[in-house]
């Protein structure tokens, strides 16, 4: 009876293992076949954008067979995008032809030699009719390293049922909130005060409005002289005033907008996406939504500048076609689609005069005005270091002590610019 139990049994486990591994190997093969044409394929890496496929198709049609753009996805978060691009560029990956980048990465990637310089005819076409500030943000060391795609500026958004005339300075904003609070009405002013890039954006806007800057023009040394004390003082007073939402140090752009939509806030300082977002989510609120220029310290302020550019990878195997593709992806036709359908403000002046764009952007004049005076963030290859450092030192804004914080900022930003020390 017992010996029967010990008869040989088939090695089922081993067989399953072999089959499984074979399946695993077959997986990628199933994907590899199917796209073999002799056409030049330009790989575009873009962050999630709902109608990018439309733009890509348009450019493929216009290319008339000279090349074919293939759209590849990048993660939604900016940090994730940068991580993917940098990792592959540092490894010399030739699969990155055109890359959609945030403007703060231009100096870094250019200095590391990972993106190609724009020269000659390409440069001329890139500069034609492009707004000045976005164009400057695509330059490094007086050379053009990318072509501006879309731009972004922050505005002061407010509710017309609570506020008659919008404040022009931060002090006026704080006082307006106080007055509303006394009347028991919604009184918060939503700002991105969480410990991340948004906090640096806010601080930078205050500093440039005060006439100072975080780093020197060439990005090699820290600037931040005594004028920055005003900026720090404003931040501290704001964070300790009635205008500050208790969640201020956990608020990013989306939370700011949601809080404004939820009805607890009278103001928010945010990018123009809030207009489309409010239109979709809360049409009632849209009727009361108004905008005004970014407030300043002693007068009108300099709005922070954001935006994206297209850069060509250094190791791309088809640079000529890649430049052409990038120019098409940001030409007036493409920018119009991005502006109307995806809410990305254009960087080419003529696009703003298009009737469809005018209809989608009732705040178009405010955006153009803000774009002409916008304050740039530091342009340095070490921008990530500076950003991490500044956001840590300034967080939470309510515990800023202007003189001490300024000294601490100066010393830590200097370290960051020299890639010394350890980031928090």
């Amino acid at each position: 009876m017992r010996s029967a139990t010990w008869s040989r049994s088939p090695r089922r486990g081993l067989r399953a293992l072999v089959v499984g591994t074979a399946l695993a190997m077959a997986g990628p093969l199933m994907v590899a076949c199917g796209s073999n044409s002799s056409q030049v394929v330009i790989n575009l890496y873009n962050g999630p954008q709902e109608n990018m496929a439309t733009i890509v198709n348009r450019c493929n049609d216009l290319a008339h067979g000279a090349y074919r753009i293939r759209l590849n996805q990048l993660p939604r978060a900016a940090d994730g995008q940068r991580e993917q691009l940098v990792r592959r560029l540092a490894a010399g990956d030739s699969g990155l032809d055109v890359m959609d980048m945030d403007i703060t990465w231009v100096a870094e990637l250019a200095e590391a030699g990972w993106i190609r310089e724009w020269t000659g005819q390409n440069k001329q076409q890139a500069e034609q009719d492009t707004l000045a500030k976005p164009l400057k943000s695509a330059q490094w060391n007086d050379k053009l390293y990318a072509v501006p795609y879309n731009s972004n500026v922050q505005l002061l958004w407010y509710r017309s049922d609570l506020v008659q005339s919008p404040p022009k300075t931060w002090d006026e904003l704080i006082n307006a909130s106080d007055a509303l609070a006394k009347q028991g009405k919604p009184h918060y002013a939503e700002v991105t005060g969480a410990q991340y890039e948004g906090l640096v954006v806010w601080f930078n806007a205050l500093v440039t409005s005060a006439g100072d800057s975080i780093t020197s023009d060439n990005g090699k040394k820290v600037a931040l002289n005594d004028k920055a004390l005003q900026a720090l003082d404003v931040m501290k007073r704001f964070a300790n005033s009635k205008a500050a939402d208790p969640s201020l140090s956990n608020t990013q752009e989306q939370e700011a907008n949601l809080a404004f939509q939820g009805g607890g806030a009278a103001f928010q300082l945010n990018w123009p996406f809030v207009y489309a977002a409010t239109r979709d989510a809360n049409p009632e609120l849209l009727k009361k939504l108004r905008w005004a220029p970014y407030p300043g310290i002693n007068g009108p302020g300099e709005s922070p500048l954001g935006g994206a550019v297209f850069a060509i990878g250094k190791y791309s195997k088809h640079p000529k076609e890649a430049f052409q593709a990038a120019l098409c992806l940001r030409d007036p036709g493409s920018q119009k689609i991005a502006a109307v359908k995806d809410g990305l403000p254009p960087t080419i002046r003529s696009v703003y005069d298009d009737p469809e764009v005018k209809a989608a952007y009732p705040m178009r004049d405010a955006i153009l005005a803000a774009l002409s005076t916008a304050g740039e963030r530091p342009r340095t290859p070490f921008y990530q270091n500076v950003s991490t450092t500044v956001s840590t030192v300034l967080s939470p804004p309510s515990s800023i002590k202007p003189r001490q914080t300024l000294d601490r900022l100066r010393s830590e930003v200097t370290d960051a610019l020299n890639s010394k020390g350890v980031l928090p």
Partner: protein
Amino acid sequence: MSHVASTADGAAPPRHKAGRRRSKPARAVTEGTRAERRLGWLLCAPAALVMLVVAGWPIIYSVLLSFQRYDLRFPDARGWIGLDNYATVLANRYWWTSFGVTTVIMVISVAIELVLGMALAMVMHRTLAARGLLRTVVLIPYGIVTVVAAYGWKYAWTPGTGWLARFLSNDSAPLTHQIPSLAIIILAEVWKTTPFMALLLLAGLALVPDELHRAAEMDGANRWQRFVKVTLPLMKPAIVVALLFRALDAFRIYDNIYILTNGAQSTGSVSIQTYHNLIGGLNLGIGSTLSVLIFLSVAILAFIFIKIFGAAAPGSEPEETR
């Protein structure tokens, strides 16, 4: 580690003492020993090969990088600088803050998880109603992607958006102060990984034979005494594995903190700091140094565990007699 087993003829069970070595004969090793060795190597070879090939070089490479100055953007400035990186990190106050925070989170969350996990394991073992369903439900928190669970907690605690925040006063935003944030982070960790502990402890519980319980009951031991004197000692190996791996993982917490606070108000862990330096700052030298320091901290922890639990830890001498 004694083990009771009844043999067919009812003879007294042999007692196995762990750690008792067979005295080695002065002559050459026997054929049996050689065969045993060969079999041992053969069985370990596939796993060892996979681990060596995949993780071996990356670990060595990381350690080597920690002795270099290497910013990914400036490959020409790369160079050996000995222990300078270590000096820089160990003198940096951000490192010690995140080290302290990480240790606090780890100790508190593992302690809570051990107690809760044990209780949960007992419930899963002994429950008389819907056993299978209960065990599955208990594992669901562990099965949810950490990032999404963290989003759930974040929105739950955000005033205005969340259902938990409604129990707090209007002015408090717990995620903007250090201590409440740490409490929420620990809550998120505990909720997510207690099932891991519970599962390992349950499997350990299952090894305790019922006869021992009944024998102890007949001898007059009450429930608590039975638990402490019968169950716990026999569960030691399972407890060690559960504690060890949970503590190692807890020390490297990242996802929950990243979503909930992104390290604001000094709630950042050592992993978040490593990420900032390695991926954000592209400073491979410092980033690798941070990794090695994390590894060393965790290794010391493991060493302490193994010393405390001694013979119960896996890796001590196998049972006697062949």
